[in-house]
């Protein structure tokens, strides 16, 4: 569990369109790395290329190298399905499977892959994952109700439970709190703080305070203009970025002078 990611000279394309250019960075294990930057600068794009979800879009591809504990994720013999099994993802909008109960949603990763497991095993995974996602006490009496019967914040925590149930090495989160109220947001931030003991976490957020609160490292992305590729401007320890960044653009963005 908890592996490091090394990204070097990453270019990301949507067909002919170069969306992100020349990103190199290291994502440390057992830590939270936050991606910040103005809308359209390619945060989601970079995040999705980390677990090979980017290539699901027709015509999309990358150049460069991404390594998980030294192993090239885009190597010739690498199966993207296996990559996604070890690098989980939580999306901006909660997306539990509407045809499944809460219980089934948590173990969806196993069920959809036809993995055999006994009832006792399944129950145990469900309980540990839901406890891990701080949702157990709220849903333990209605595990057989549909997943879509939960509130938005509960659904998002259900999606986190679903992602950690398959025990990935890395957890990617794309604006996991942007559809949630402050209390659910706080619950998820607490959860992230807890999860980072076991996982490598990358989180995209538009909320500066959130980045400052939860992350250890912060990466600031920016783009020169519309139609221009997004670039990594600087990456450093979060305190450094928020107190004394090296780049003027970072300081301007954080202090709200643009973007």
């Amino acid at each position, binding site marked *: 569990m908890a592996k490091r990611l090394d990204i070097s000279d990453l270019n990301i394309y949507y067909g002919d369109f170069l969306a992100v250019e020349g990103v190199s960075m290291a994502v440390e294990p057992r830590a939270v790395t936050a991606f910040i930057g103005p809308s359209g600068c390619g945060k989601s794009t970079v995040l999705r290329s980390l677990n090979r979800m980017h290539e699901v879009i027709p015509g999309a591809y990358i150049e460069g190298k991404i390594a998980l504990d030294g192993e090239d994720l885009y190597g010739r013999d690498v199966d993207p399905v296996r990559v*996604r099994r070890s690098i989980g993802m939580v999306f901006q909008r909660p*997306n539990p*499977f509407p*045809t499944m109960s809460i219980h089934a949603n948590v173990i969806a990763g196993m069920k*959809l*892959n036809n993995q055999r497991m006994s009832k006792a095993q399944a129950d145990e995974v469900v309980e540990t994952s839901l406890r891990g996602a701080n949702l157990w006490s709220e849903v333990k009496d209605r595990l057989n*109700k549909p997943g879509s*019967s939960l509130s938005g914040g509960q659904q998002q925590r259900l999606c986190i439970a679903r992602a950690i149930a398959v025990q990935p090495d890395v957890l990617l989160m794309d604006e996991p709190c942007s559809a949630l109220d402050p209390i659910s947001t706080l619950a998820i931030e607490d959860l992230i703080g807890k999860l980072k003991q076991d996982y490598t976490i990358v989180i995209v957020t538009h909320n500066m305070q959130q980045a400052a609160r939860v992350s250890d490292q912060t990466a600031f992305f920016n783009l020169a203009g519309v139609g221009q590729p997004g670039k990594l401007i600087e990456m450093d320890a979060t305190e450094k970025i928020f107190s004394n960044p090296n780049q003027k653009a970072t300081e301007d963005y954080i202090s709200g002078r643009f973007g």
Partner: protein
Amino acid sequence: MATVQTPPSVELSSPGLTRGKLPRYAPVVLLVLSFAAVGGLFAALGSFSVPLTVFLGIILYAVVILVVTTFVEGARAARDRLATTLMYSAFGLAVVPLVSLLWTVLENGLERFNGYFLTTTMRGVFGGMDAGGAYHAIMGTLEITAFATVISVPIGMLTAIYLVEYGPKSKLGRGITFFVDVMTGIPSIVAGLFAYALFVLFFGPGVRMGAAGSVALAVLMIPVVVRASEEMLKLVPNELREAAYALGVPKWLTIVKVVLRTAAAGLVTGVMLAIARVIGETAPLLIVAGVVDSANFDLFEGRMMTLPVFVYGQYTQGLAPPGPDSIITINYDRAWAAALTLILIVMVLNLIARIIARIFSPKTGR
């Protein structure tokens, strides 16, 4: 030069939030009064007729309610009432043929529709004999349609899956969509000839068998299944596919266990529509499945009767020759009873599809 214009003030006559309001029963009362007025007038003239009374009554009602509402509630409410009247009239107009059709079939079909009719064939029945039923035709229709469904559902669904999941923008995908559209327009008799030509290749000229009928029906069914399934698969949110991918689920398992499962209710309905579309087909079955009086359960051997062909056959025989025990209209009676049977089969299938769809549909309740 820009000048700010004050908008003309509306409804100065009634400031405030309230306005005149007709009592709730007013429309009903006015409608009844309109009917009574028109009906009474015709009765006084001595030429009462129901359709004319209904027709003129509704027109009178529309005028009266428009005028009354304009005075009591204002112009906007009057237009609202007028639109409501038009809407209900259009609805009634659309329902009248349907109800009348069902009524006619019931009225004519119920006389012969009984256990005997459902369990007897036409073997050894002739003239105006008070005997014979549609058992062979019912079994034939069920078998041929079931086999047609077995052929067309896999082909149709797999095509739809390809179109939505693999080749939405590919050349092949566009080509398939084009040909599916063309196929939708194939006249059913041509499908029958096609099936005949196909089976001649294997069984020689003059071939008649139930399976050929199924192939002909499948030709008609496939485009309907493809179109309906395609729409249903498109409705599955992309987020669900991505959620499954992100859990390390391969694409094919995602399609089988997430996409198809989520769309299941709609897919069942689509298949049901396709079945309803072909179960009443007559022409192709007349060509390739043939006409026969006795029961034949073997799809791959010999002629097979079907309900639409049965209806057609009985109807074309016309009146039976008069005789001591002869029922002159027996052929027509059997035709109606078989038509009723066909309608009932479609209704039952519809009901089953609804139940299945309900079981499969995504749950939302708390």
